[in-house]
């Protein structure tokens, strides 16, 4: 059993696959949700998937650089959230309850 | 050879060709800078600069060395060195008369036509147009030529679009886009030509002479490149079936615009075919000659037939241009000295006679505010002198011997007959149709008893007469005594032909010379070709 478990030790590839799935779910989320906030959350999911990949690869490569990159990604994510929420707040103030599908004045 | 010519040019301390381009340009700027309060000053400035340009072009004509096939008055300077683009101007027998025509036609168009509103920008655009046209005829650098060729569209666009008639915007846009699509291909062609030639030249150069002398393209490559150029010129000519922008542009353009469009702008196409098509790619030109001959002949007939059925006088003249330009293309691709010289001559002749025709139609419009043939009647009775002027110009357009139109047409046909017999047989029927549509139109407009609206038609005024006089003078002079022109055109045409024969192995069937001079016959032998090649610039 333990041998079996040992053989089934998750490798980097497992992590990468998991990350890919998470990324995919995030991408789908952006496409199917209409609430801009939730869409934004899905982008965060995608970023987390990337982070997971970075960490796993860093481990595999034995390179701390991957982890450092994740750190920067988090900073960026934070900054993005601030501004993104700012935009959403300013638009929602004018048009409470608007979904992404309602905001289509510009088209064609 | 070009160096020799360049050396000859440098002796002149005055860069006449550069001045020919720059003077109208400066005139345009100066026109714009004149005060709005004094419209007559504006006009004076414009007239002055165009007259100076015209004078310079006549001086050029006077000091042109007859018998020299190469480029004269060459002005060659580095410009965009990194891309091998230079300011290279020169004039030879093929371009000389087009330059002179440009120089002469513009002052007449400026003086002879009235824009009715916004005179200042109108004059500035016309002068810019002149600079562009001059540059196109003088450029010996592919990019420089393209630059002028393309920039010409802008003033013409505004002239049609702002000072034209009711459908002007449509016509101007059509003209602009149609021509631009041709030149878009040409630009690719130009760039490719220079890049492919650079393998043999050792450096990228857009210099026409350098490429023509130094590079030899593989047959298939040359053909593609040739077509890239030829399509642009075919649109400009315009060659059937790419001609439909022309009637619209002509009809909607203000009179000066039509005069210039017919007079010189269309020649950019035929001139381009000779200078850049045949000269650069003789092999491809020979290879594709049947296509061009066929299209030219179709154009002659099609244009003539379509002209017959027009109800708008200006449109009729426009279609007649399609037919006439067909003759020039026919001559170009017949590859005989007579035909090419005739073609070049016909470019000038068509410029003079169709220019004058548009001027006259413009005068009719000024008086009657209509160009509809059906609304005009019996003008000859009330304005016999006007009718006479129209008649002379019309006969020139029909190609009656003794007037200029005949000389070019005849030389084209007789020259082409040996190498393009059946095309000539069919194309020559165009002269019948030319008589048909023009005389029919003349009959409807000038003959008959004038109705009420037409009975107050004003006779030709002195100023108008003075404008028309040079046209009629040229029409008669060139028809009676074309030798001075031919003497200057022929060496260059012959040199071009020698090049075609040498590069493409094309030779016109030898003409049997009964008795008189057989010495001119350079035949198809390589030696003879090499010898005469020496004269080429």
């Amino acid at each position, binding site marked *: 059993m333990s041998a079996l478990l040992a053989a089934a*030790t998750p490798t980097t590839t497992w992590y990468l696959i998991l990350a890919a799935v998470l990324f995919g*779910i995030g991408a789908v989320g952006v*496409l199917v949700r209409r609430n801009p906030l939730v869409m934004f959350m899905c982008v965060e999911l995608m970023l987390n998937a990337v*982070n997971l990949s970075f960490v796993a690869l860093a481990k595999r*490569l034995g390179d701390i650089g991957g982890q450092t990159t994740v750190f920067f990604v988090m900073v960026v994510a934070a900054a993005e959230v601030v*501004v993104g929420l700012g935009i959403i707040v300013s638009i929602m103030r004018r048009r409470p309850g608007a979904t992404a599908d309602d905001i289509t004045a510009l088209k064609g | 050879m070009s160096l020799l010519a360049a050396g000859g040019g440098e002796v002149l301390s005055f860069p006449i060709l550069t001045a020919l381009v720059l003077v109208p340009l400066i005139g345009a700027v100066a026109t714009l800078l004149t005060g709005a309060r004094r419209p007559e000053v504006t006009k004076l400035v414009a007239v002055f600069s165009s007259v100076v340009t015209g004078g310079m072009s006549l001086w050029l004509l006077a000091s042109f060395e007859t018998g020299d096939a190469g480029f004269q008055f060459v002005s060659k300077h580095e410009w965009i060195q990194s891309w091998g683009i230079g300011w290279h101007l020169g004039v030879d027998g093929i371009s000389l008369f087009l330059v002179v025509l440009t120089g002469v036609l513009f002052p007449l168009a400026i003086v002879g036509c009235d824009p009715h509103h916004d005179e200042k920008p109108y004059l500035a655009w016309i002068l810019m147009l002149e600079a562009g046209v001059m540059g196109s005829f003088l450029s010996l650098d592919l990019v420089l030529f393209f630059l002028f060729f393309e920039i010409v569209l802008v003033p013409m666009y505004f002239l049609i679009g702002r000072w034209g008639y009711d459908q002007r915007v449509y016509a101007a846009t059509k003209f602009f886009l149609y021509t631009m699509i041709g030149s878009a291909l040409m630009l690719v062609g130009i760039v490719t030509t220079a890049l492919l030639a650079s393998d043999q030249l050792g450096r990228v150069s857009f210099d026409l002479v350098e490429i023509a002398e130094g590079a030899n393209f593989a047959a298939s490559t040359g053909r593609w490149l040739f077509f890239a150029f030829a399509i642009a010129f075919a649109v400009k000519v315009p060659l059937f079936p790419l001609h439909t922008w022309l009637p619209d542009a002509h009809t909607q353009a203000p009179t000066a615009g039509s005069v210039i469009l017919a007079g010189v702008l269309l020649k950019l196409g035929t001139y381009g075919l000779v200078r850049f098509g045949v000269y650069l790619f003789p092999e491809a030109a020979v290879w594709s000659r049947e296509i061009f001959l066929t299209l030219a002949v179709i154009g002659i007939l099609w244009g003539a037939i379509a002209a017959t059925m027009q109800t708008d006088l200006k449109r009729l003249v426009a279609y007649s241009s399609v037919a006439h330009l067909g003759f020039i293309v026919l001559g170009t691709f017949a590859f005989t000295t007579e035909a090419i010289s005739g073609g070049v001559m016909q470019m000038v002749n068509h410029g003079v006679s169709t220019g004058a025709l548009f001027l006259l139609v413009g005068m009719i419009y000024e008086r009657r505010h209509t160009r509809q043939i059906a609304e005009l009647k019996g003008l000859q009775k009330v304005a016999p002198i006007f009718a006479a002027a129209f008649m002379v110009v019309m006969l020139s357009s029909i190609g009656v011997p003794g007037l200029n139109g005949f000389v070019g047409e005849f030389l084209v046909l007789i020259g082409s007959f040996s190498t393009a017999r059946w095309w000539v047989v069919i194309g020559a029927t165009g002269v019948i149709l030319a008589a048909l549509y023009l005389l029919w139109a003349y009959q409807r407009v000038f003959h008959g008893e004038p109705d009420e609206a037409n009975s107050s038609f004003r006779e030709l005024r002195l100023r108008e007469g003075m404008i028309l006089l040079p046209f009629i003078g040229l029409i008669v002079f060139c028809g009676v005594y074309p030798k001075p022109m031919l003497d200057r055109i022929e060496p260059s045409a012959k040199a071009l032909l020698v090049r075609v024969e040498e590069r493409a192995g094309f030779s016109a069937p030898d003409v049997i010379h009964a008795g008189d001079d057989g010495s001119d016959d350079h035949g198809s032998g390589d030696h003879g070709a090499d010898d005469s090649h020496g004269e080429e610039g």
Partner: protein
Amino acid sequence: MELVVFVLAAAMILVGAIGVIVRRNPVHAALSLVLTLFGVAVLFVAQEAHFLAAVQVIVYAGAIVVLFLFVIMLLGVDRTEDITIEPFRIQRPLAAIVGLGVIGLVVASVSASRDVIGRGSGLEIPAVTGDGDSNIRQIARNLFSDHVFAFEFTSVLLTVAVVGAVMLTRKVKNGKGVS
């Protein structure tokens, strides 16, 4: 052990992720997001990125999600969204293509290349020990050597964020809106 951790964390992550995209109420979505974020943090630990795991929890779960929730409450947009209805007919099929395509192709690519991952590592950093400090130290070292410019540059990014927030959310002066 590792397998168990991985499976559990993966389950958290996926459940949370799916929660984000299927929970109709944005508040619930945000809470699902927290679940995912925690799962990721767990895997960070499993991959010996202790520092990042901590930051993940603090920054993401602690700050970002809170911010989300805060905004949801502030704007009162916690209305449920009917995700059974899709106004654009092609949207869902496209989403399926995108989701499956991205997942499938990336997974396939990653699997195809699994043997060569790590080949490009020029650095032979000793295997990370169990010492928790070490990870932070390594990151710090890395941060202040190779990435010192990037690190300093984040200041610009954060300034942008701050100024941006100010610009976006300041009250509209001079009343009338123009549209």
